[in-house]
């Protein structure tokens, strides 16, 4: 290697370590700091507090129960959609995946609107002499987290189920195994690694999630680790930061070891990867049963997704909270407030600015990294990739805390919008690296060589060959980054200052201060914003349809953009 390259590599490595690793190291150091010396006293003190133990216990119970819920529903619907001869699969899949696009705090808010004390559902429950449902409880958190993570299990499982060759089933049938026996003994066993992988992802997402326990658990004083860290971090006191960092280390270790667990698991069951997915139907139901299953599935998910969104929308047009919905109380007051309040408008423009900048930086850095990776250059890229995976795998609240410790030392970063940009890029970069790498893989090196041979320079090659070929896949994978940073709440809840509030944080504040109807209206706006974003990207990334064949493929793959994003997301967590 040339000397100049060596220096470039060294500088790149140093930058990566400074941006990605140093904050985490500082967090670990902080957790061992007490007064002026070092020691494990912070940990000792933490574990003496009964509230810590309760938070740990709650976290585990909630995460496990929610994982069971999302695993059961995710696997069931993956099976229905992959194998059954039901119709309206696209609609059903859209409904199953909806919680993946909509941020978890919007889902939480919509459910609280449905189950508000005088809400539709609770009146209905009363009618049937059932006790009222209180979502502000452990059960409520479990339920919402379970719904939010269904897509994680669903997507890993549905792809695996489709990749199981039909021959394997037929061989079992020919060996005398019945159809349902085959599903149980062949398909379920083959899909088990994917189901387990998906449920571990769901478990990690539960641990990571801050919004749901913050919205439901803080009012009910049900602490979990992520909200407990938040309380400690924003609480005043001489040791609060040290204690929060000690807790963060505990949570971070749980999350990272979980991720490592899946990655070793994923490596073991890598074999199925090259097999093409088979979209044909495998289990044929009679017309009647098929109808039942079809509409039953749609009904379940309509209740899970649409009903809360609708009640929330209805409530957002009411000027009084907790009243029975009536046309008399209909008003646009809440929306008027949103559109005239400077703080709100400021938050929206902050979030839009943040997500655009994050996307732009991620696309540039991520694509460059993917290009360097595919051309097998030095260790800096590999270091970047593993560090970026690490900052994605650890819970957001932990990353936020480490950002504070690291960047407050450098003047002009903490307290301005810069720290949010840095935090978002650190958090989401891996998604773009994965997305761009996948896009790069589809470009054979010979295409580039051909461009060189036919006399193209580097710039022209990028302009004429690589950019057009990479464009669609890159954009569709940066969509996830865009939506995630637009609706981000965990990082900004700790890192945002007075002038740099984001959308997520504003909703959180409205909810905390009891302005429920405004929070509803804001959430409705967020959903509309997301839908517009998705439609736009679908439009930009639509496949040019040349003949009926590709048109057919497109219709089958209408949901492919976010499927591929999700797989990046998972790979991001895994590796």
């Amino acid at each position, binding site marked *: 290697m040339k000397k100049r390259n060596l220096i470039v590599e060294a500088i790149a490595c140093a930058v990566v370590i400074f941006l990605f690793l140093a904050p985490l190291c500082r967090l670990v150091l902080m957790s061992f700091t007490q007064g002026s010396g070092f020691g494990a006293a912070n940990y000792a003190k933490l574990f003496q507090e009964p509230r810590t133990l309760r938070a740990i216990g709650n976290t585990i119970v909630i995460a496990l129960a929610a994982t069971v819920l999302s695993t059961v529903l995710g696997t069931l619907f993956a099976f229905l959609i992959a194998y059954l001869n039901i119709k309206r699969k696209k609609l059903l899949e859209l409904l199953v995946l909806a919680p993946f696009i909509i941020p978890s705090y919007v889902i939480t808010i919509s459910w609280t609107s449905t189950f508000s004390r005088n809400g539709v559902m609770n009146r209905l429950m009363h009618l049937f002499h059932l006790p009222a449902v209180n979502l502000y409880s452990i059960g409520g958190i479990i339920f919402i987290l379970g719904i939010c993570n269904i897509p994680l299990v669903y997507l890993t499982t549905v792809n695996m189920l489709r990749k199981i060759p039909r021959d394997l089933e037929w061989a079992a049938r020919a060996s005398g195994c*019945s159809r349902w026996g085959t599903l149980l003994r062949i398909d379920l066993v083959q899909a088990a690694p994917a189901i387990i992988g998906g449920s571990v992802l769901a478990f990690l997402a539960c641990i990571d999630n801050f919004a749901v326990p913050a919205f439901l658990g803080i009012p009910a004083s049900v602490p979990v680790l992520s909200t407990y860290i938040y309380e400690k971090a924003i609480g005043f006191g001489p040791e609060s930061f040290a204690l929060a960092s000690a807790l963060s280390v505990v949570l971070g270790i749980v999350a990272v070891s979980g991720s490592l667990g899946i990655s070793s698991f994923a490596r073991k069951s890598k074999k199925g990867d090259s097999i093409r997915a088979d979209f044909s139907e495998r289990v044929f139901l009679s017309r009647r049963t098929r109808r039942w299953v079809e509409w039953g599935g749609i009904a379940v998910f309509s209740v899970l997704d649409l009903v809360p969104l609708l009640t929330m929308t209805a409530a957002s047009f009411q000027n009084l909270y907790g009243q029975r919905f009536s046309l008399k109380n209909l008003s646009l007051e809440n929306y008027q407030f949103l559109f005239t309040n400077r703080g709100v408008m400021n938050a929206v423009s902050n979030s839009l600015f943040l997500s655009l900048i994050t996307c732009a930086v991620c696309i540039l850095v991520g694509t460059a990294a993917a290009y360097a990776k595919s051309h097998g250059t030095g260790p800096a890229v590999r270091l970047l990739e593993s560090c970026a995976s690490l900052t994605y795998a650890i819970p957001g609240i932990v990353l936020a805390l480490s950002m504070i410790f690291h960047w407050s030392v450098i003047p002009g970063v903490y307290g301005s919008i810069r720290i949010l940009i840095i935090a978002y890029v650190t958090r989401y970069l891996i998604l773009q690296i994965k997305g761009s790498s996948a896009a790069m893989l589809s470009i054979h090196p010979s295409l580039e060589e051909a461009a060189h041979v036919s006399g193209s320079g580097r710039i022209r090659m990028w302009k004429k060959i690589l950019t057009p070929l990479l464009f669609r896949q890159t954009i569709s994978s940066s969509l996830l980054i865009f939506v995630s940073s637009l609706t981000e709440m965990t990082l900004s809840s700790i890192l945002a200052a007075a002038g740099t509030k984001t959308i997520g944080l504003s909703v959180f504040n409205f909810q905390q201060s009891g302005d429920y109807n405004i929070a509803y209206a804001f959430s409705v706006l967020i959903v509309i914003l997301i839908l517009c974003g998705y439609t736009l990207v679908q439009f930009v990334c639509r496949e040019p349809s040349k003949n009926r064949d590709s048109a057919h493929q497109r219709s089958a793959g209408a949901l492919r953009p976010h499927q591929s994003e999700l797989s990046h997301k998972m790979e991001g967590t895994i590796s």
Partner: protein
Amino acid sequence: MSLKISNVSKMYGANIALSNVFIEIKDGEFVCILGPSGCGKTTLLRLVGGFERPSQGLIYSGDTLYSSPDRCVPVERRNLGMVFQSFALWPNMTVRQHAEFPLLQKKYAGIDASKKKSLISQTLESVGLSALANRYPDELSGGQKQRVALARAIITKPQILLMDEPLSALDAELKISMRKEIQDIHRMTGATILYVTHDQSEALAMADRIMIMRNGEVEQAGTPEEIYLHPRTPFAASFVGKYNLLRGIWDHDLFYEESSNLCFQGQMIEPELKKMGLFPVRPDEFQIQKHGNGIPAKIKNRQYCGREIHYSVESSGRLITVYAPVRESYKLNESIVLIKKDGMN
């Protein structure tokens, strides 16, 4: 068990995959379904297996109705074994577990464990896998994998064995040696075998009877000798025997070739071909000479194959394939005449 496939058709929407297929297969017979890809041969096998339902027609095994448009005995109750092109081994099971799997079904619950165990080792022995019993599929070579699939298919001694291009995924040499093993299994089990392939040499080598299919229809069914020596359709002629089809005029048993007006004797030629004005000649039935009374032609391509040389020669705009012994060598673009050897037909 004998099989009767009676006027079976299969439609996928408007696509006709099989149309009006009829064949009776005797107990213990080895029947090859031969045809190019997309001819419907695999569809036919799946219908017999019960993986799909016919749109029309009936399938009987012995006297039992297996398939009709409205009734379909489930696969698992058909008492058959199946071998797939892709091997279809379960990646999480060892060789022994594969052989054991069919015996785990309720039907065999009455057989005691030691008997099952000896049956398993016997079967593994018969396909030569005793030493590999504890291996997983990804630790086996292609040939070994297909032996596992064979063991799994024959362990319950099914009366019908379905084989869907079992040798296509193997390399050339292994194909030849596995043919023998499949023949051994046929003799050993006495099962009726329905074997799908696109490889005519495989069909000729192993089958008691060959059924040639094309575009969902049966072109010709008969013993390998009948198919090879007496093709009844142009497709059967060119697909199996690689026949060249000369054009000309038939006068009873005499054929006048159109470009040279030579006359050939053709008592054995099938009437269907006669009607079309065709005369089939296999590549090895021609002899190349520099001069003489034959069909004038020009050498267009030659491929040296060791035992013989394959020539493509052009005669009045059409290409004819000729296999000639190595001692006669001709150059490209050389003008020659083709003379038909006597005594074959």
